[in-house]
């Protein structure tokens, strides 16, 4: 169902007719094992909810179980055998996800599998790959991305967290913020400044950081919409051994580039792999919920309200159709992976439009409800009335990405590109070494 916001538990559609004998055998083995070993996918259960410590713990066990059964762990099928994966081609992973449609998968490993695995494979030393990749796939390590800072998130290369080398150890000091699930993570990819006398992008290094280090303080952030999935970290003399530098010293921006591209690819394909599958063509189904809201408010016959409803149907459907189109285009080479930014942008744009329309539709019913009104009411949650789009890259950054990376428009002029970082203008509170 295109308009369904929750995991589909509908009919399983497979590409079984394309299987080779080997793929067929793999499919049947997976099908047989899943039947007795994977929990069902529940429509009301969130794919990702870092606050739900019980679900997080269950996902960890689930990852361990999938790995132990010989299926590589979530997204481990194409990972080489020496790093804990199965070393099979993508087709086998597609088969696994087709078969897993009715079941819960350990989606809390999404950061690790969508972002950290590609980064380690591309930039990691042999030792790093052998040490860390198996621990993602066997459920030992949840990973965080320590990127944004209180001084700014969009201008990622402007990070202020410092790393200084003492002997064979790097000492990290500073603060990171907007870390998804930081409080449950075991390891983090942390971007820090190692030389402020170089130009902004040149003095950065990426570190593999132990989130359980005594110098690491992790606080959950309470949000206006409720929930506290995001964290802020304070790093006070956090020690990282030299062998846990990922990529070159002062070459961190290159690793961050891989990180961001991996994130965009993941977003474009569908972050929670196996939750939505691009290759299955579904028809449009108009959500019943909006009509129920209109009836609840008593405006289902009002011509103006019907226009709002019609528009919401269009936004929801077009948003999904764009996602499918971009996915298919990236897969067959019509688009570069950069086009994934169009899906993200339009997802934001339509979410904002939908919120505005539903608020107009609901009228006063959208700002207050009696305690007994329950689900049918449009409710008074802030998520229904705010029209923000900040997480995962602000709307403005997404617009830049589409304009500059996809449409190829010229960049805005900034300070001279070779200006040393410590001579750039910065926030008054910034302490730049």
């Amino acid at each position, binding site marked *: 169902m295109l308009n369904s916001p929750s995991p589909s538990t509908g009919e399983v559609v497979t590409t079984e007719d394309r299987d080779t004998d080997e793929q067929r055998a793999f499919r049947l083995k997976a099908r047989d094992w899943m039947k007795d070993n994977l929990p069902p996918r529940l429509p009301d259960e969130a794919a990702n909810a870092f606050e739900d410590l019980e679900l997080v713990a269950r996902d960890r066990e689930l990852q361990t179980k999938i790995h132990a059964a010989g299926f590589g762990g979530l997204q481990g099928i194409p990972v080489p055998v020496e790093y804990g994966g199965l070393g099979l081609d993508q087709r086998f992973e597609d088969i696994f996800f087709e078969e897993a449609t009715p079941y819960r998968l350990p989606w809390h490993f999404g950061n690790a599998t969508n972002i950290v695995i590609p980064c380690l494979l591309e930039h990691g030393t042999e030792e790093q790959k052998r040490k860390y990749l198996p621990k993602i796939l066997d459920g030992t390590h949840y990973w965080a991305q320590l990127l944004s800072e209180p001084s700014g998130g969009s201008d990622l290369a402007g990070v202020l967290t410092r790393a200084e080398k003492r002997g064979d150890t790097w000492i990290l000091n500073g603060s990171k913020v907007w870390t998804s699930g930081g409080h449950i993570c075991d390891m983090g990819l942390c971007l820090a400044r190692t030389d402020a006398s170089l130009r902004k992008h040149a003095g950065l290094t990426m570190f593999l950081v132990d989130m359980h280090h005594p110098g690491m303080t992790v606080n959950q952030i309470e949000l206006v919409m409720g929930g506290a999935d995001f964290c802020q970290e304070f790093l006070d003399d956090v020690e990282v051994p030299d062998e846990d530098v990922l990529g070159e010293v002062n070459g961190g921006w290159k690793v961050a580039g891989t990180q961001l591209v991996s994130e965009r690819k993941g977003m474009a394909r569908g972050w929670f792999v196996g939750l939505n599958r691009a290759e299955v063509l579904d028809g449009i189904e*108009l959500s019943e919920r909006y009509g129920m809201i209109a009836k609840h408010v008593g405006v289902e016959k009002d011509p103006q309200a019907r226009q709002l409803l*019609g528009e919401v149907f269009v936004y929801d*459907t*077009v948003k999904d159709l*764009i996602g499918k189109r971009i996915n298919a285009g990236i897969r067959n080479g019509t688009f570069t992976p950069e086009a994934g930014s*169009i899906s993200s942008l339009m997802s934001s744009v339509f979410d904002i439009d939908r919120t505005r329309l539903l608020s107009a539709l609901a009228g006063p019913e959208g700002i207050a409800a009696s305690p007994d009104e329950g689900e049918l009411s449009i409710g008074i949650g802030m998520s229904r009335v705010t029209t923000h789009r900040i997480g995962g890259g602000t709307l*403005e950054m997404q*617009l*830049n990405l*589409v304009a500059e990376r996809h449409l190829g428009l010229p960049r805005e002029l900034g300070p001279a590109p070779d200006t040393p970082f410590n001579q750039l203008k910065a926030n008054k509170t910034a302490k730049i070494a």
Partner: protein
Amino acid sequence: MDVTLNEDQTMLQDMTRRFLEDRSPITALRKQADNDGGFDRDVWKDGAELGWVALFVPEDNGGIAESAGGVADAVVVAEELGRVVFSGPFLSTCAVADAIARSGSAEQRDAHLPGLAAGDTFGAWCLSGRGPMAGMDAGSVTAAQSGGGHELNGFAAFVQDAGDADLLLVTARDGDGISQFVIPAGTAGVSIEPMEALDLGRRLSVVTFNGVKTDANALLGEAGKGADALEKQLQVLLALQCAETVGVADRAFEFTLEWVNDRYAFGRQIGSYQGLKHRLARHCGHLEGAKAAAAHAATAVQSGASDAAIAVSIAKSQCGRAATEIIRDCLQMHGGIGLTWEHDIHLYLRRAVSNEQLWGSPAAHHERLCQLAGV
């Protein structure tokens, strides 16, 4: 438009684009508009030989329907026609050919389809009158039994290409049902009055039926039972029109991107200013949305999918509104030159605005979506 065109469709696209660049570039529309003339019949005849109408016509009647992809192929042509704001009667003639191929008797198919497929004759569809549901709801023409045939009274407005048409497809209210007729445009009692149209390449008319007597051969399908056929015809027409609109917007967006890259102000390319590039990024997203919706609609209509009715209304709303909004803003980004008759962008904007309102305004399709959703 579709990112998953097959090999034949890619060939059709290349062939159509080359043909139009050679024979009917945007300058052709300008010439016709300046001369207040119709479209170029030679170009139409040669286009018809490329299969433009024949896609809807069975092999027995001079077409290629059996070996082609129907609407899914025709939208490829429609999109290319949009890129040059083509002025020939493509939508009307295809819609009439499709209706006759779908519902016509053997005699009707034999009589009408070969001429339409060959590009020798043209059709126009008289569906509805004026008002908020214009272009979607039948009812402004009524049919009543008379002798062995029917008598038609009433009028249809905004009828595309009626002035050039040899054949009229008339959709009429018949008691509680819908009856459809195919009659010669010169039938006694039919009068065709041209309207003045915003789009320089679109000829629209009011067609009046004053006691028009039809014989039994004129009835298309069964009397009073035309509602399902009407819905199918409308779906085909909307899929084609949305694809055309996508072509219009796509081309205007393309040359606007070239413009903002080439044009300098305050020492910088104007496309480097966020004031413009953020708007262009949004337009790009909405254009992708229009392409995705139009492609989905074409596929759904061609395969007779259960969501086809919804899909065409979604596409009509998205394509209609996005194209207009995008091209209006593209004109703004051109500055003064965009306001001159000499620049092509107004030709694109006229077609987009016109397409947005013809065959059901976005508002009419929003209402239809509510009905389809059971609200």
